[in-house]
């Protein structure tokens, strides 16, 4: 499965989709007629990145379950790598979300359910790395990280749901993701960007997995020389 598609092909594929999505977003999709205006163009990468971040955490969740079942360190590596990438994407979501907020609503931060959820997601997965950093013994670190990763991923939708209980923010107009409000041309460009981002995630996960494997290999070799 691993050798099915080589890394460069993945990166190039991701690049093609992303550029196409971007071009379509700017040239093909109409400018949003509502208050958002032109700034709505941010959406074409913002939402795919958000989706990709969640996919990354989902991958970590699955990897965690598989790790607990098999105790195979490869699943742990996949977990770390996915969480790290998920975190990078989440930070991008927050950054672009804030810029968008400023453009559309004139404020950098709004306690809007989605943004708030992503803020908590960032805290959660930073905590994941804090947890990893305070356990020395490797199996134990992997086990605890897996348990936490499972709990955290379960918590994400729950948190999102809970933020709905908060009193409505000042800006109730949020893009509804369901295809209903989206013109076809918009949807096409959005969808292509989404594929691109997901491909990019896969490519980066593979690359980072190679990094982790090499790191372990170096540690093993050092160990065998030192001992």
């Amino acid at each position, binding site marked *: 499965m691993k050798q099915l598609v080589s890394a460069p092909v993945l990166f190039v594929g991701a690049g093609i989709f992303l550029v196409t999505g971007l071009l379509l977003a700017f040239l093909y999709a109409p400018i949003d007629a509502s208050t958002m205006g032109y700034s709505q163009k941010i959406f074409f990468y913002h939402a795919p990145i958000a989706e990709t971040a969640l996919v990354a955490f989902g991958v970590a969740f699955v990897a965690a379950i598989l790790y*607990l079942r098999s105790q195979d360190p490869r699943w742990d590596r996949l977990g770390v790598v996915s969480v790290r990438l998920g975190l990078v994407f989440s930070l991008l979501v927050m950054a672009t979300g804030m810029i968008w907020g400023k453009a559309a609503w004139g404020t950098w931060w709004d306690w809007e359910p989605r943004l708030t959820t992503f803020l*908590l997601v960032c*805290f*959660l997965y930073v*905590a994941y790395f*804090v*947890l990893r950093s*305070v*356990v*020395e013994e490797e*199996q*134990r670190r992997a*086990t*605890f990280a*897996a*348990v*936490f990763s*499972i*709990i*955290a991923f*379960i*918590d994400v939708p*729950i*948190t999102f*749901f*809970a*933020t709905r*209980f*908060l009193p409505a923010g000042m800006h109730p107009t949020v893009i509804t993701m369901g295809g209903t409000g989206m013109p076809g041309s918009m949807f096409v460009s959005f969808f292509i960007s989404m594929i691109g981002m997901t491909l990019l995630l896969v490519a980066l996960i593979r690359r980072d997995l190679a990094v982790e494997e090499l790191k372990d290999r170096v540690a093993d070799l050092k160990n065998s020389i030192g001992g």
Partner: protein
Amino acid sequence: MAILRKDLIRELRTREMIISMILFVLLAMVIFHYAFSVKEDADLTYFTGGMLWVTFIFAMLLGLNRSFAQEKDERCLDGLLLCPVDRVTIFLAKTAGNLVFLLIIQVVAVPVFTLFFVSRSYVGDLVPFLIVMLLADVGICALGTLLATISMNTRSRDLLLPIIFLPLIVPVLIAATGATTLIFAEGAGFGDLLARVLFLLGFDAVFLVAAYGTYDFAIGE
């Protein structure tokens, strides 16, 4: 359950825990009072729910650390793990122990906080409040016990717990605070609370199941 009884005997024997917790709660109230007294006759009714749950969660953090520190210090945990009981039973007993602890705090905190901060009488709404409180407590204790088990097995023990516990408990905080505020400030009945109550119930169920599935791993080899 023997573990629960053992923990309770120990608490009652030493008393340090309960006494310091009650002091903690009272001090928290005083500090909140000063922190929020920004203008004359400020009505804090709308903030009481938040103050209460923040206090409970922080008190719980201290309690959780304590409840496992003792097991770890004299390697009593090994003794516990040697016994022919399921790990999940240990989890349930510990959760129950922490629940008792939290309830004791709440028995003290709720009357005092509401006496000082809530302007309208809420006696008639006590039943919905107790239901909300119990449901939120179960979620806090179950998740807290699971995470405390992990954190006590790490190098930084009590420092780690808030970092992993607080972001995860936010949903409970939101729902419980919202419901509590609705009850205290507006005397909301079951109808208005239904969504939050169901949410808390769901949270409890989900995390009890999650803990059931993962506790074997959390308690370590």
